[in-house]
């Protein structure tokens, strides 16, 4: 790999890291997305700020009814951590379906969120889970709702002087469950998503009291399928009901064609995977 010349800094503290940021700097955690772009010279930051050695950012912690995940929590940890599996199933599943073993051992959940790739697994999961992004800069701390976070392809709401230091995710309460599923480029669930969906549901006895559905791989940005979620609320969550609601799954997105799917096919997959994710989320309700 032959990237353009860049400065590399590996700060020892968060303050030092924040001080190194600027318009031409890029934060690197696991490097699984940044390094391929740099080696192809598609992206050439002047400074790479490697936050990989910062202390205290690699933990998953409970906090009241929520839990937080630090910027250095790797996909492998997210996939196997009991708290994530029970309290944010969609995110644990997304992590387990990301990349291969090497990628999961290096790549971070926060990094994948901040990268805002249209075909990644994590953005849909955090959207469906209603996560909050904690962004820090030298000026202080800012909270950004997941629904406000994904602005465009590879563009998040983070400012150049901010680091996504953690995610805060509400734990599943009684009647709540979530799930993630996708079709991968190499078939099954392997590789980047051709299309995928994350879902969170809150069941009130026999009906859907609340729901969030998010799609990946389908549209010009990773986004919530609000029309489908609204259509779900009040139904009994049966296969037929979810399927009917899923007809609205891509109402909120502008679908893009790529090598893996036409617009028609992606719209179809959106409804298939939104249905599968919601049905699984209902099954996962504890």
């Amino acid at each position: 790999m032959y990237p353009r010349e860049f400065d590399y800094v590996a700060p020892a503290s968060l303050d030092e890291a924040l001080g190194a940021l600027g318009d031409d700097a890029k934060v690197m955690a696991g490097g699984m997305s940044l390094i391929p772009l740099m080696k192809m010279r598609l992206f050439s930051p002047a400074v790479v700020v490697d936050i990989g050695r910062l202390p205290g950012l690699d933990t998953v912690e409970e906090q009241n009814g929520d839990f937080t995940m630090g910027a250095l929590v790797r996909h492998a940890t997210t996939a196997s951590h009991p708290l994530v599996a029970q309290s944010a199933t969609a995110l644990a599943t997304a992590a387990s379906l990301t990349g291969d073993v090497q990628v999961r051992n290096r790549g971070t959940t926060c990094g994948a969120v901040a990268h805002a790739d249209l075909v990644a697994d994590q953005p849909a999961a955090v959207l469906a889970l209603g996560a909050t992004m904690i962004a820090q800069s030298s000026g202080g701390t800012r909270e950004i709702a997941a629904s406000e976070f994904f602005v465009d392809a590879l563009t998040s709401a983070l400012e150049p002087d901010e680091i996504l230091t953690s995610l805060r995710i509400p734990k599943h309460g009684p009647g709540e469950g979530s799930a993630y599923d996708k079709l991968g480029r190499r078939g099954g669930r392997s590789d980047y998503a051709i299309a995928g969906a994350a879902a969170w549901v809150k069941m009130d006895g026999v009906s859907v009291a609340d729901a969030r559905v998010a799609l990946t791989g389908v549209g010009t940005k990773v986004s919530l399928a609000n029309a489908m979620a609204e259509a779900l609320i009040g139904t009994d969550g049966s296969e037929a009901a979810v399927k009917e609601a899923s007809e609205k799954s891509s109402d909120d997105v502008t679908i893009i064609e790529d090598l893996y799917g036409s617009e028609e096919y992606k719209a179809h997959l959106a409804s298939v995977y939104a249905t599968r994710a919601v049905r699984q989320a209902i099954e996962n309700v504890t």
Partner: protein
Amino acid sequence: MATTSVMGGDVRRREDPALIKGRGVYVDDLQPTGLLHVAFSRAPVGRAKIKSVDTSAASSMPGVVAVFTHDDVAELGPLVAQVPIGKLRPLLAAGEVNHVGEAIAMVVAENRYQAQDAADAIDVDYDILPAVIDLKEAKSDATKVHDELDSNVIHTWTYHGYWAALGLEDQTPQVDAAMERDDAVIVSIEMTNQRLIPVAIEPRSVMVEYNSGYERFTVHSATQVPHALAGAIATMFGMSPSDVRAIAPEVGGGFGAKLNVYNDEILAAFAAKKLGRPVKWTETRREAAGATIHGRGWIGTATLVGTKDGQFLGYKLEAIADMGAYSQNFTVAIPLLGLWVASGQYKMPVSWTVDCVVTNTMTTDAYRGAGRPEAIYYLERIIDAFAREIGMDPIEVRRKNFWQKDEFPATMGCGFSLDSGDYEAAIDKLIEVSGYEDLIRRRDEARAEGRQVGIGIGSYVEVCGFGPAVLAEIGFSWSNYGLPASFNGSGLVRVNPDASVTVVIGTGPTGQGHETTWAQIISDRLGIPWENVRVRHGDTQEHPMGIGTFGSRSISVDGAATYNAAEEIKVKAAKIAAHLLEAAPEDIVFEDGAAHVAGSPERSIEWTAIAKSAYQAHTLPEGVESGLEAHTAFSPGNATWPFGTHLALVEVDADTGDVEILEYYAVDDCGNRVNPMIVDGQIHGGITQGIGQALFEGAVYDSSGNLLTSSLLDYPLPTAADLPSFQLSHTVTPTDVNPMGVKGIGEAGTIGSAHTIVNAVVDALSPLGVKHIDMPLRPKRVWAAIQEASN
């Protein structure tokens, strides 16, 4: 005397410890003092006239030593090719570019980063022209790729017309007449066998040093063909190949892509000579995708005519094969390899026409299977469609038409003879190991539940073991590289004074395990422990003439030569042993690491004593010269023709089009096996690449010639996680073409598998009315086919 535990044993690969521990030395690991690095400025457009190339900014950038463009290297001429039909590749673009990735300028700098920075700073002004990408459009000549050629169709191969000397019969009238019969059942499908990008773990890499005192090149390259590389460089620089030493150290995968000699290898030599310093270039993965040869790339209509009781009456293929913009090594000759297996395992007249067209894309050439996967794909897909049409089991229809065991050697209409075969035995074995009847029951039960489960059968014949001298007469000659024309195998075996053995071969591995396999052959012949046999390869200065590892040829051609060399050594060793034992040479028997007198095992002498004596004048019999080595060449009278039948059980998710391979069975027959574990490894790799073509891979150029699949992000390769466990079995039908009875196995898995998968998917979807889907069977295509069939 054969110690069969070695020959035919699953000896562990001797190469692996070094490679697994990361201690293998590859070209890019080489860092001689004063090394310079190369980067290329490459065309971002598919077809254009070059108005200007401005290298001034690049030339003055830090670390830049030189920038070369076409005029600097024009005197060397275009890249030499074995089959110079079509347009040869200019070393650097000559006033025009004809595919994305074509090299325009070469930057040489103190380090690779500076070289790349400067290459990016070269400013090229283009007059963009419409690109020719679509094969039918290319054939129409509506737009010509090269003004100087009469047509985009640069060659046409026909079943009878390629070998004038043989006066082969044109069987087209027979096939056409069969179609006129009242009882004819005719099945015809247009199919694409898509363009693929070969992907080796190690990218191509070359490092050249020039000794100006002695005027010699030393070239290290990740190549399958060091002798051809030395010959090509010598030819282009007007030197003797003896003054070019080419070395292929560890090579991390080739698959045919490293069988070409490339312009970058010539250019690195040019720069090393011009600048008086060592020069290295290692391709990036993007360059590997766009500027190293591609494979396949056919569209064609296959037609099978037969009777409703399953008798084949004739087969016709009319296809167009994509050559890319420039012809390199064999380019135009690749479809000819397919032609030789056009009739597969079956007796029937064949009409076969393949037009070779130029397009504004990267050159195509040999990629694992090279012409044979394409040919077998069309044949076996249409046989499957025919069986479905007449409602006959796909195994039964094959059984009804193939050459019978007692008909070998069987001369085909293309003039070649199948050396040996027992196709029925392989199919019987497949039925047994797969539990075929049970699979059918399971498939039908799944169908009754509304699931889309299918069984695919795929047979193949391969032609390999390229060594017959006759090949040189029909175009597969190396003389354009300043080398002998034909494909001899060679082997030099030396028993050293300590009874260790050095085997020096003219062919080297790119992962096939020569160091292990050749040691087994020698150990088996001489009775010397295989651990004491060292195998050397890949250095044209040290090693005998040999063409290289490709076309599944090494074991059956060079392996056979080495086998014969061992036999020669035994003759001399017997004389020495007889002298020491005071016996007659004809009474000497070699066994268990020693020689003894027949019938008197107590009159025995160890190899260590024989070897030592061989190098001491006072212990040699009169008239016997010192030393114990033999060098033999081997030229087989025919190619070898491995065969087999594969079976896949798949399930399709009709909601998404996703294909899952549930089970995969392969019965392959490559004759005798020296190391069955290595054979199985080759089959695993081959099947994996065939499945890659069937389900995932495909090089895609858009209509203006942009390569949309220039990184592994957009060129999905199969991984172990995506595949079932392969159930491999074998039948053994030795060949008499070489003394070991071996046939070659490097490509068989690829040739047998892609159509097996497609046949299975079509079987799964046949209840819905699907008749064909073009590869790769990505979910979107499978889903679209289901939609189309149900509308």
